[in-house]
């Protein structure tokens, strides 16, 4: 199995000279098994280039599988630009957590409402189907075993553990850490005081995440913020590299990949973050890499 990063940015796409090396497109990762099966995780703007590549490779219409962590714009706005959707015979299965709505199809289809986009997803040649996921309830997509993991993000989000070819990687984005803020189904102007139940819920969420990550080779983690930025915006639903490293060390994973970079973090700052956490990770036995657009990582011990 290998994974390829098509979009590594959080919040919104960032063109320009400052993002040439790490990339400016938003969340999208492609997992590919040794037999060539693929699963796409998140449908941010990176999905446009991925779609173009998949279309070039394909000799016949394909069945694509897309796991969504949640449906904030930066994780779904590539979907209407996924070129295989415009090919008759293509099938697209979407897997997502249902949050703040009654029906997945309505939410995902809603991104191409007449006001927002010229072509409705219901009207494109590809056939879409929708699957609701539930944290902890695993399922199979071809040779992949997929386990959704509850995360701490406004209105909810899920990470995924993907086992295939005898190894596993996990996608843990978007999530806040599990100590200061518990995200629920309402807007947070700032951090709210935690009740005892909130603390228990956060502890349980952290524990379940660590348990799911045990035995995973590579963890791709939301490390949007620096420590200073997190201190100012603890209620935004994102983590720092230190928080990710703490979780990965607790689960004894081999490798952590920093991901969902803040739009304001230019290439030079990313270089510094990459160097700092490569060294810090070595101190706790975790290899820390920093994702960039176009990066491909083999997964599993045989890959080293």
């Amino acid at each position, binding site marked *: 199995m290998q994974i390829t990063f098509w979009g590594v940015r959080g919040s919104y796409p*960032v*063109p*320009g000279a400052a*993002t040439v090396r790490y990339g400016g497109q938003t969340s999208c990762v492609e997992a590919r098994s040794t037999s060539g099966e693929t699963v796409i995780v998140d449908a941010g703007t990176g999905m446009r280039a991925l779609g173009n590549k998949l279309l070039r490779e394909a000799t016949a219409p394909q069945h694509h599988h897309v796991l969504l962590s949640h449906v904030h714009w930066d994780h779904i706005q590539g979907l209407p630009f996924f070129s295989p959707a415009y090919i008759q015979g293509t099938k697209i299965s979407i897997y997502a957590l249902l949050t703040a709505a009654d029906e997945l199809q309505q*939410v995902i289809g809603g991104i191409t409402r*007449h006001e927002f986009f010229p072509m409705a997803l219901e009207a494109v040649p590809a056939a879409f189907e929708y699957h609701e996921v539930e944290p902890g309830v695993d399922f199979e997509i071809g040779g992949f075993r997929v386990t959704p993991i509850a995360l701490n993000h*406004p*209105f909810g989000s899920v990470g995924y553990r993907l086992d295939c070819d005898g190894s596993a990687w996990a996608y843990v984005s978007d999530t806040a850490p599990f100590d200061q803020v518990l995200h629920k*189904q309402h807007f947070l102007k700032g951090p709210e005081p935690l009740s005892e139940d909130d603390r228990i819920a956060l502890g349980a969420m952290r524990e379940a995440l660590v348990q799911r990550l045990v035995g995973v080779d590579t963890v791709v983690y939301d490390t949007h913020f620096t420590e200073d930025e997190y201190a100012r915006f603890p209620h935004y639903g994102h983590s720092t590299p230190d928080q990710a490293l703490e979780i990965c060390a607790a689960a004894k994973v081999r490798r952590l990949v920093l991901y969902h970079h803040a739009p304001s973090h230019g290439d030079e700052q990313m270089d510094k973050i990459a160097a700092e956490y490569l060294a810090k990770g070595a101190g706790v036995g975790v290899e820390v890499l920093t994702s960039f657009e176009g990066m491909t990582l083999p997964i599993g011990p045989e890959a080293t």
Partner: protein
Amino acid sequence: MKIRFWGVRGSFAMSGRDFLRYGGNTSSVELLTDAGQRLLIDLGTGATELGKQLMAGEFGKGQGSVPILLSHTHLDHIQGLPFFTPFFIKGNEIRILGASPSSGMSLESTLQNQLAPHYSPLNGLENLAAGVSIETLTPGSTITLPGFEVRTVAVPHGSMWTTAFRVTADGKTVTYLSDVEYPNVDDPLAEAIDLARDADLLVHDAMHADHDYDLRRGWGHSPARAGVVVAERAGAKKLALFHHSPDATDDMIDEVVSRTAARTAVPVFAAAEGSYLDV
């Protein structure tokens, strides 16, 4: 009057080396009068950087006010809205003016839907700290904004309509005709030509290179040559090609500009992210 392009790309923001000279951000334009009054058009991803720059001035202190005209609500023209930082500062007064989308949904409901809890952690316009007013424009009307007079007209954009703007300030005129496809691209609508009459600068949709257009007829965008015809017939003094295709690299845009310039006496350039230009 000065103009600055903060986003010139159509449909989709493009990052990477091939898009550095013209810029990869989606539609966002700033107009500034000699007295410093400001008017923005569209809130594509270019508005994020514009918002940061504005924060250095009165908007950072919660004392800024600005009107924003929306040509329409396709995502590439509003996707910068949730990241336009002046919205997050209490005291700023921001007016958003646009026509109701042709679906019949109101402008306000459309923007609320963009910020709905499943799509955005902002969870609604009411959570923006600034004073925000959503004002519905009736295309065809002329409105007065501090320092600017704006004439509006509806133009066809595929299955919907967009609003085009003729903005006059300091005795100069800029016409913004983006996201438009005329029923006959070689014989543009009289309303569009009239809106660009004697304009000092015409900013026109040029999503497609002329040779690509036939494959994309009916998608709601113009080939570069449509702007030329409008500029020539309207007597516009200068033409800015705008809303570049996400597939158009810097080199490809260079080529479109030189081909377009070769066919007209109207000075032509491709809109690029960058500095303030005198109109």
